């Protein structure tokens, strides 16, 4: 019998370890365009101690470990590029503590966004967390690890900016805590301790996040979306600047797409607004629509696109597959808001070249400090030619991101290489040192963020 499999069974139990092809197949796939990559084993631990034991085993046997949550990055970030153990964290889904007055919740990293949302809705309806645009099965840990962003929370920044503390199993097996929890206090802040931010954005190649303290925010009773429409994409940066100055919207997203036809070449800004009363809602709308946007309406360059609508969540993942081919993948980037016009124009060109209707979107982060700009490419899973086109379009877009002065968000290996090729050499060397120090046997999600020179 396979010794690694036997050891995994001993750690997590027979029901939660597998080397059967049908289960390995499930973990070999990503929802995007990545080629399948098979793990050799799958293990689903329940505790940080089980994770620790698996890591110690992997070091001993020199077997790669690839942690994953919902597996919904679309970018193949949780695919086992060099085989090994796919470490499915979804059983680690407990809510450990919720501090209402300090507005934070401590959760196990494998908890789904949907579960936390449902829990808050039921027990603390006046609190919310920043939910990503991904489907509810996406995990908190996965989204934090990729620097995700959430609906209704753009003023607060990235979801990873909302971390108050973490528990991490290091690649050598030690269980570490970071933030106020590390000195025995509550999990209420990550600061002002020495900066040890080594685990976010590394695609699980520096450690496995097992617990997270997450900031919560006031959840208002009324949540509605207003829409503003302009034809000139050049107006978008100014509009976002004006709207973030007022600061009344919980989300600002600019978007356009080739399909349906009414969207083509017309840029929509959705403004999510919340309030506890109609008066609060109208106060906010008045400042936005009658204040900052009035001049655009009166000079005819912009208009209120629709009567206010209830917000449907998740907003972003519903909109990309207009081609109805069953698949889409996108390049996300973190961009200066001023790049919106060029991002749209160049993205539409790439789409046209690959015969894919364009779908682009820029979600404001912070007070327009940046935007997450995405280019979505739809494909038909049953048609390899459309998958090839989508893949090529994605690679072209990765290059475009850097050309336009942006940073690729949750890059796959191709995008990681593009960025490392441009990276300051001292920074690159430091990344290499950090990686070697933390993961001397190179077992953690190998193939990701590997500095080769």
């Amino acid at each position, binding site marked *: 019998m396979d010794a690694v499999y036997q050891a995994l069974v001993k750690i997590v139990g027979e029901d939660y370890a597998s080397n059967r092809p049908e289960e390995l197949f499930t973990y070999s796939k990503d929802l995007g365009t990545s080629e399948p990559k098979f793990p050799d084993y799958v293990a689903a631990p329940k505790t940080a101690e089980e994770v620790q034991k698996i890591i110690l085993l992997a070091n001993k046997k020199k077997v790669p470990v690839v942690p994953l949550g919902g597996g919904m990055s679309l970018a193949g970030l949780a695919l086992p590029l060099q085989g090994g153990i796919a470490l499915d964290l979804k059983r680690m889904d407990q809510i450990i503590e919720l501090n209402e007055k300090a507005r934070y919740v401590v959760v196990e990293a494998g908890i789904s966004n949907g579960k936390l949302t449902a829990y808050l809705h039921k027990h603390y309806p006046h609190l919310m967390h920043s939910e990503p645009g991904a489907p509810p099965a996406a995990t908190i840990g996965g989204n934090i690890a990729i620097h995700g962003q959430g609906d209704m929370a753009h003023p607060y920044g990235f979801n990873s900016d909302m971390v108050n503390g973490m528990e991490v199993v290091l690649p050598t097996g030690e269980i570490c805590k970071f933030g106020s929890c590390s000195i025995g206090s509550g999990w209420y802040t990550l600061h002002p301790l020495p900066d040890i931010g080594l685990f976010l954005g590394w695609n699980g190649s520096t450690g496995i996040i097992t617990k997270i303290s997450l900031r919560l925010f006031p959840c208002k009773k009324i949540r509605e979306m207003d829409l503003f*429409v*302009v*034809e000139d994409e050049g107006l978008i940066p100014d509009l976002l600047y004006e709207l973030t100055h007022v600061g009344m919207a919980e989300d600002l997203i600019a978007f356009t797409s080739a*399909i*349906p*036809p*009414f*969207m*083509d*070449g*017309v*840029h929509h800004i959705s403004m999510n607004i919340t309030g506890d009363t*109609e008066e609060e809602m*109208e106060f906010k709308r008045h400042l936005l*629509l*009658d204040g900052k946007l*009035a001049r*655009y*309406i*009166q000079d*005819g*360059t*912009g*208009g*209120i*696109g629709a*009567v206010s609508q209830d917000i449907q969540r998740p907003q972003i993942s519903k909109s990309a597959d207009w081609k109805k081919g069953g698949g889409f993948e996108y390049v996300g980037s973190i961009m200066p808001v001023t790049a919106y016009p060029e991002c749209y124009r160049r993205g539409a060109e790439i789409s046209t070249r690959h015969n894919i209707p364009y779908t682009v979107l820029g979600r404001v982060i912070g007070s327009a400090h940046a935007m997450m700009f995405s280019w979505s490419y739809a494909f038909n899973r049953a048609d390899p030619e459309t998958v090839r086109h989508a893949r090529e379009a994605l690679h072209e877009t990765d290059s475009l991101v850097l050309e336009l002065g942006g940073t690729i968000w949750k890059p796959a290996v191709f995008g990681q290489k593009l960025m490392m090729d441009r990276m300051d050499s001292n920074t690159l060397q430091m990344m290499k040192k950090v990686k070697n120090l933390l993961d001397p046997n190179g077992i953690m999600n190998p193939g990701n963020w590997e500095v080769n020179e």
Partner: protein
Amino acid sequence: MFQLKFDETKCFACETNDCLTKCQYLKIDPDTAKIEIKKIINKKDSFVLHECVTCYACEEYCPTGNHPFYLIVQRQEELNILPLPDPLIKRGIRIGIPFRGEPDIQEIKGPALNLGVFSSLATLTRGKLFEGLTLMSADSRKMFHYFCQLMYLHFGRISVINERLEKIIETIAAHKVKEVVHFHDECYGTYTSYAPAFGFAVPFKSIHLFEYLYNRLKELKSEIKPLNFKVAYQRPCSSRLSSDKYQFVDKIFDLIGAEHVKREYVGENALCCGGTILGQKKKGSRQFSLDLQKKNIDDMQRAGAQICVFNCPACMQTIGKPVAKKGMMPVFMSDLCRLAIGEKTS
């Protein structure tokens, strides 16, 4: 080319100038009205062209059936005085473009039911009331082939309607229908008011939903249990194109035992839902729209309405929620009728 059949001599001879003096949104005295009508007829700029909220009501107010509203919209386009910001017009015009294949044309024997662009309302057309009617198309991918296009009256774009309407009529006629019940006032108004006004041939007979419902309810009279609700009716703009059918609102209410509450803004004085006004260019339009909605809904509430009845999905979308927040249930007319014969509503 389709041209508006407009007889200017009727306007010059008109003693009332009701088209403008009765307007609830522009306060115009008879002398001013006479001057402004003349300007509009003569293709001159008029403040009416800038301030019109495009509520269609002047079509109903005109005592001679001379289509003042169509003329106003035509002049707005000719003089490039557009009521909405440009991006909304561009976007709006593209809304009507079919993009998911050709319509499935099948011969329909007997009367047909046309949902126009509102395929999502197909759930409203279930039950005994609609037995015997064949739904022309409820495919959301194909609905734009049945879109009557009249919405572009709000956009100052007569030309778009005139470019596309013939094709829409051809599509409906391809089903070889003799009689078509139009679910929405807008479609009915297109084929019975707009089309003849501009010289479009319509090779099928159009039936207004309310007339159809009334006749069908009479056939099902034994199954009606009086509702005993006090109801208000939100009259849509396009009903102004078929004011002769407005009588069926009260006839239906009487038949199903609903009390049409006495209110200020009813019948000819009905107020616009404000949906279009919300997006207009004119300064303060949004606030004007909100004030209008408040005036309208307060009036319903003061009159003691328990239910607000709609026929237009756009009106429902615009004020359905505010109506509900005031404690009145928003209900489509067809659903109210289904309720009266003991069916569950959608």
